[in-house]
């Protein structure tokens, strides 16, 4: 029996709060892991590990962080276009902090708690089969 969306959300919030040592009220869906919650590279590894343990899944490294940038590659025009689409979908995010023409190294800053929740909902609702 798969967990409900609200259960997924609450478990993710709890894992992120714990891994980043942040109080619950700061861990909102629109919070950027890097800019709002202080994540550094190893925290991403830690969060993935905890999600894998908690949800009993294997999460391929890049998959969860690609999130909204699947198939976009390094082309700055394609990135900017995808970004514009994201802005419409996520009005609550602090877009003022993101360069208009981001490069790949800016992308980790765009990852929010919501990105993680969406990914897990997709996986657990029998979405993309998980490659071992």
């Amino acid at each position: 029996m798969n967990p409900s969306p609200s259960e997924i959300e609450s478990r993710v919030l709890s894992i992120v709060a714990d891994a980043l040592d942040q109080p619950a009220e700061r861990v909102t869906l629109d919070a950027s892991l890097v800019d709002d919650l202080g994540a550094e590279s190893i925290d991403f590894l830690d969060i993935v590990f905890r999600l894998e343990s908690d949800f009993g899944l294997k999460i391929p490294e890049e998959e969860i962080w690609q999130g909204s940038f699947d198939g976009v590659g390094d082309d700055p025009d394609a990135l900017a276009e995808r970004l514009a689409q994201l802005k419409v979908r996520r009005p609550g995010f602090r877009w003022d902090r993101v360069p208009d023409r981001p490069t790949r190294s800016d992308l980790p800053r765009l990852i929010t708690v919501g990105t993680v929740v969406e990914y897990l909902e997709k996986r657990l609702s029998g979405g993309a089969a998980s490659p071992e």
Partner: protein
Amino acid sequence: MRERRVVVTGLGLLTPLGTGLGATRLALAEGRCAIAPATLFDASPFASPLAGEVRGLDPRAYFRVPKALKLCDRRTRFAVCAAAMALEDAGFPAGPCDGLGVSIGTSGSDLGAEELSAALARSEDPALSARDTDAFGEAALAGLNPLWLLVHLPNMTSAHVAIQREARGPNTTVMTGWAAGLSAIVEGAAWIAEGRADAVLAGGADSAVHPFAFAALEQKGLLSGPSPLVPAEGAAVVLFEEREAALARGARLLGEVGAHALSAGTRLAALAADATPAPSRQLERLAGNLLAAHAPAALVLSLAEGLAGPVAAVAMGPAGEASALLVLPPDEAARSAA
């Protein structure tokens, strides 16, 4: 080339007798013994299950960035806490400091037994992994927390002290066995004398209360017999400062660094002969052997007493490693003349 003078201005201490200098001194004065069968793990299989454990420490209170706690094993937590205590004791100004160095000594690592076991428990064939290091590596790959290496790399002990304090001076983790902490102190003072740092957090942090340490000690025969060694844990950190700068900021001087030795031999013997010994044996009787942190702890206790004359801290270990440091009473005459 004249070298600079080095003084002690702050002390930090964590032992099984108490989480702080005051608590430890009180317990010593009352003759309270903190040695008991280990509780951090079930040590009953060993020749002696006795240990000296630090209890009641709330590390969060000492961490400027508490998120780092998940990356800190016991001895690293002890080091950060003792360093914070020393800085507070010295009234050292807060904020990033390019001239503040960190030199900590430690020995061994518990290698995160529980995490390794958890990784195996997730793997397909734990029993195979037991016999076959190839299979173990694969099990680790599949199920070990990626942060494992970072938690157990010994240099992280000094790194975390520096990160918490934004200290950008020279930084090292010394690992010369049981002499490591005192050697780290000797080197830390040398950095100031040489002009490489203006202040240094120097000391020892160790935790031998884990199966790997017990097993190795037992293999050497140290846990057997009528008075077995009691593995213990803790941290002792001093803040050293360049003397003129310390006086200028109105710091209280606890002692001045004198001669030292970084190996066994005549020099070490001479240092020990001419001075009051730091209370190493008394500490061991009541708290156990803090290994790399032991001689530093004894030194801190002497300094806390107040020095009437020179004090020598000496550390020696089973592999022949040794170090010694002479500390002199602070020269008050210069201050009153200034």
